[in-house]
């Protein structure tokens, strides 16, 4: 659905990007200065690449060899900019409908639906100058959605917001990613957002795309530590909520036969959820321990151990068909005689699981044949 293979140069940055993804949410992940905005501007048509091609849903937007270079207007890409870029002299309602009255794109999407999806009902008469940062971004997303786009680009929509505002807007993004019905390219340097929202992950590092693929696979790769950020290394577990226990404030999540207990999330039994478990929050035991306060302990098999020169080792374990990542010291690996294929018990502290991490599982969106794990 999204096919990009381009070379370009802007200022000091040499960009050479190549990735393909099938629908759903594709995250473009990389540190500041990696070239994320440059790459999205090339896809949007704001910067011309030197060579290569860009296609969305089979429509070629740019092809250097064939001499195709559609204008920004003709590309029909909804672009949500980092700085929202709402038109300050127009009301929220006029901003939302701008593509219809100024862009001559009648659009098929129901305005009331978008207003409802993003919670904009109370804002319609207001001017952008009176909105909070989070509200501005929601309006910008709605405006882009209503422009009848074939692709929605969101360039770090949360980057300029504080954590509280981010938490306000993330639930809207959760719904959007499932209900938008169009491919989304989500740009971020936050592994938390990427893990929560995306189906496909494209890693961008120094203007290059060293790897791309289903998000769970990518997070499980230990060779991408530099790009994904060592401290935030994590894995995704997907499951279904089976029980919410209001007395203890715990939610049970079935991850394929085993029950993971986490502090209560805003979820109902039956909801599909995705949990991001940080590698540093996972411990291993060679014998099932007793008398622990840690509530989550599962049998697992070690798939790989990668240790480097530092004090740490990264261990990938299979748990009920899913991959969990653990970071322990190299000394522990030696002491416990850990090796590939060994059966161990993984221990996850319930409180370490971020309870705000409610997100639709991969199966909810059309992943275009990509499956996790």
């Amino acid at each position, binding site marked *: 659905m999204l096919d990009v293979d381009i070379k370009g140069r802007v200022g000091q940055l040499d960009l050479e990007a190549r990735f393909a993804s099938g629908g759903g949410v594709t995250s473009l992940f990389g540190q500041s200065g990696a070239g994320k905005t440059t790459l999205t501007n090339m896809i949007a048509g704001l910067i011309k690449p030197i060579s290569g091609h860009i296609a969305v849903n089979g429509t070629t937007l740019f092809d250097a060899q064939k001499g195709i270079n559609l204008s920004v207007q003709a590309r029909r890409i909804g672009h949500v*900019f980092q700085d929202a870029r709402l*038109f*300050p002299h127009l009301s929220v309602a006029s901003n939302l409908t701008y593509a219809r009255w*100024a*862009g001559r794109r009648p659009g098929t999407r129901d305005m009331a639906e978008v207003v409802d999806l993003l919670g904009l009902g109370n804002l319609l008469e207001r001017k952008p*100058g009176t909105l909070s940062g989070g509200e501005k971004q929601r309006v910008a997303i709605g405006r882009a959605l209503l*422009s009848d786009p074939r692709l929605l680009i969101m360039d770090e929509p949360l980057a300029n917001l504080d954590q509280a505002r981010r938490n306000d807007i993330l639930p809207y993004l959760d719904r959007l990613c499932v209900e938008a019905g169009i491919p989304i390219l989500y740009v971020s340097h936050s592994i938390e957002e990427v893990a929560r929202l995306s189906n496909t992950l494209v890693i961008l590092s120094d203007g290059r795309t060293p790897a791309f693929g289903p998000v769970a696979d990518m997070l499980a790769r230990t060779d991408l530590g530099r790009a994904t950020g060592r401290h935030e290394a994590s894995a995704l577990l997907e499951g279904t909520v089976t029980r919410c226990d209001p007395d203890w404030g715990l939610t049970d999540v079935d991850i394929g036969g085993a029950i993971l207990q986490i502090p209560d999330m805003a979820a109902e039994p039956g909801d599909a959820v995705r949990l991001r478990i940080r590698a540093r929050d996972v411990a291993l035991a060679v014998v099932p321990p007793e008398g622990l306060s840690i509530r989550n302990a599962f049998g697992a098999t070690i798939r790989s151990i990668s240790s480097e020169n530092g004090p740490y080792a990264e261990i990938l374990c299979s748990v009920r068909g899913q991959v969990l990542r653990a970071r322990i010291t190299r000394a522990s690996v030696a002491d416990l005689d850990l090796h590939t294929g060994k059966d161990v018990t993984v221990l996850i502290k319930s409180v370490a699981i971020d309870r705000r991490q409610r997100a639709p599982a991969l199966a909810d969106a059309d992943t275009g044949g990509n499956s996790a794990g």
Partner: protein
Amino acid sequence: MDFFNLEPAEWQALLLTLKVASAALAVALPLAVLMAFVLARYRFTGHGAVNALVHLPLVLPPVVTGYVLLLTFGRKGPVGSFLDSVFGVTFAFNWTGAALAAGVMAFPLMVRPIRLSFEAVDPKLEEAAKSLGAHRLTAFLTVTLPLALPGILGGAILGFAKAMGEFGATITFVSNIPGETRTLSLALYTATQTPGGDLAAFRLTLIAAFVAFAALIASEALARRLRARMGGGHA
């Protein structure tokens, strides 16, 4: 005769002044907006030269500007004779010439604030408009122009005031003909040159002051309404 009733000659001068200034504004303002946008948004070879040329009437003695106009737009001037023979339009010694002189003199005063207001509009907003399907002209008309409107209004007021008060270039180019080119300023000058014309000069001064005052009040009210429409928050 009542002091507050205008004499026919005064009416004539006042109406002529308004006609000349309005015509000058109507033609020069769109050109000033275009020129200001080009100077604000595009960098090209000769940018500095164009900018200097636009500002030339501001620094040249008005008499020089008037004389240059006379040389080019007079009946024997290259542009003047061409316009006369092809379109039958003449500028020499009639009110359209006065309007031309006023417009040329007001032009730099209009370009300056308008250019500043265009420069204050984030070009990224136009990118956003294009990403929503708007073509370049539509993006300009729906986003950039409305956002620059306060500056355009400021430029228009400055230009109108300059056009109303223009003297040197006008008298040099189209002379001082009652009913044709004798605007308030020229009438006032004529009165001061006439023995016993003090009262007439004083009355003309009052008329000029009244018109200027009314224009300022009106523009201030307009500016306030514009700000209210733009700002939202601080309205």
